[in-house]
């Protein structure tokens, strides 16, 4: 019984370390899924509770980050099924930028536009973009995580980027110099 207690305690430490290490990534993925920071944090909290219950019963998890991502994605699927959410989009995200005030303003305008463009993609497209572009997962890893064929990942990612590019172009952004410039200032 003491051994059980020791193992539970050690697993708790491991799990806390796992969460601590990937908490920001979890919030980011949740945000990409639901487009709302507060809801994203709620989802992450639910995910951690579910994940902990599963974690203490498991002996070995091969890829803990992918495993907890998967739980988050399933939690979000359950959540949307149950609640039929009315999602409130965040327009004014508080961006931290260490550039000059002018550059900061320009960046913030761009980030807001980027956020709006992202919000126009569907959640599956945003998810593959996040996993590929931010987490740099391979197509194979994404396919395994999402439980979809490799071809689906490739086409989803292709369509997502194509749409994003199109939306940015519609807003007047094009590549020039070291920054994407332009933007519909109206």
């Amino acid at each position, binding site marked *: *019984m*003491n*051994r*059980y*207690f*020791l193992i*539970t*305690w*050690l697993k*708790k*430490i*491991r*799990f*806390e*370390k796992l*969460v601590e290490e990937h*908490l*920001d990534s*979890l*919030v*980011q993925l949740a*945000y990409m899924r639901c487009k709302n*920071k507060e809801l*994203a*944090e709620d989802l*992450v*909290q639910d995910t*951690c*509770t579910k994940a*902990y*219950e599963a974690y*203490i019963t498991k002996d070995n998890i091969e890829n803990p980050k992918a495993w907890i991502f998967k739980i988050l994605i399933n939690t979000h699927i359950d959540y949307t099924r149950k609640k039929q959410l009315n999602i409130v989009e965040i327009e004014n*995200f508080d*961006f*931290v930028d260490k550039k000059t005030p002018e550059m900061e303003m320009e960046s913030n305008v*761009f*980030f807001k536009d*980027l*956020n709006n463009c*992202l919000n126009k993609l569907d959640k599956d497209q945003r998810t593959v*973009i996040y996993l*590929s*572009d*931010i987490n740099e997962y*391979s*197509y194979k890893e994404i396919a395994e995580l999402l439980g979809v064929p490799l071809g689906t990942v*490739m086409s989803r*990612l*292709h369509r997502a*980027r*194509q749409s*994003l*590019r199109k939306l*940015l*172009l519609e807003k007047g*952004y*094009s*590549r020039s110099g070291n*920054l*994407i410039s332009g933007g519909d200032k109206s």
Partner: protein
Amino acid sequence: MNCKKAEIYMDALLDDELEVSESIDIVEHIEICSECRAKWELNEETRSKLKHFIGSIKASQNLKQNIRKNLFLKNSNVIKFRPSLIAACMIILLGLGFIYNESSSKVPPLNELHNNCNIEVISNNIEVLSNHIGVNLKDNQFSTLEKNDFRFQGASRVGSPFIKRGSIISLKNSQGNKISICFLPENYQMPECHKTLKNGIVFHCGYKEDCNYTYWKQNGKTIALVSNNFPPDQLIDMAESLTDEI
């Protein structure tokens, strides 16, 4: 290579999923086709901005606290199903609480102890170290660690006013992960939240929100303390080996 095909392969190139020969074909096309180059550059820029944008989303302190709180409750629930363990723990904790209450000295957390100490390499000789810290270290503890890719780093006295005769031994592996074991003076008291017995030796966990360490008692005295400054896998190995050896 035409533009349609280039666009299809552009994503795979961006994601480093193409064979070298395929990459060369598409790179050559991008170089000569301004339309595809513009798409490629926009994709690259968008990706870089996305990283910056998404990277700026951070978990709030509130979320961190809530998760910790939930996990603590969850851990309590696990114990609820084991009444005899709770009873045993309560008796032990009550006893320790009594001892702890008698101690009026403030106990610094381990990280404070670590900050207060200057690492001074005493020796890599186990015998010299044993004499230095007043604890009989066994060679095989360190040889086990060496086999696990750890190398001995050094030992130091703790200059803290709270612990005048304590010593720290640090072991570091090739990845730079560090384990610090602090051997404590007699009668040193500290807050605690869990304890268990293994092979007749009391094994304590001081892990909670504001204290994060592990320590061992022998004959009622706390003799060693391990910091949280190391990965959990190594903690388990260390905890088990030290609990057996000390």
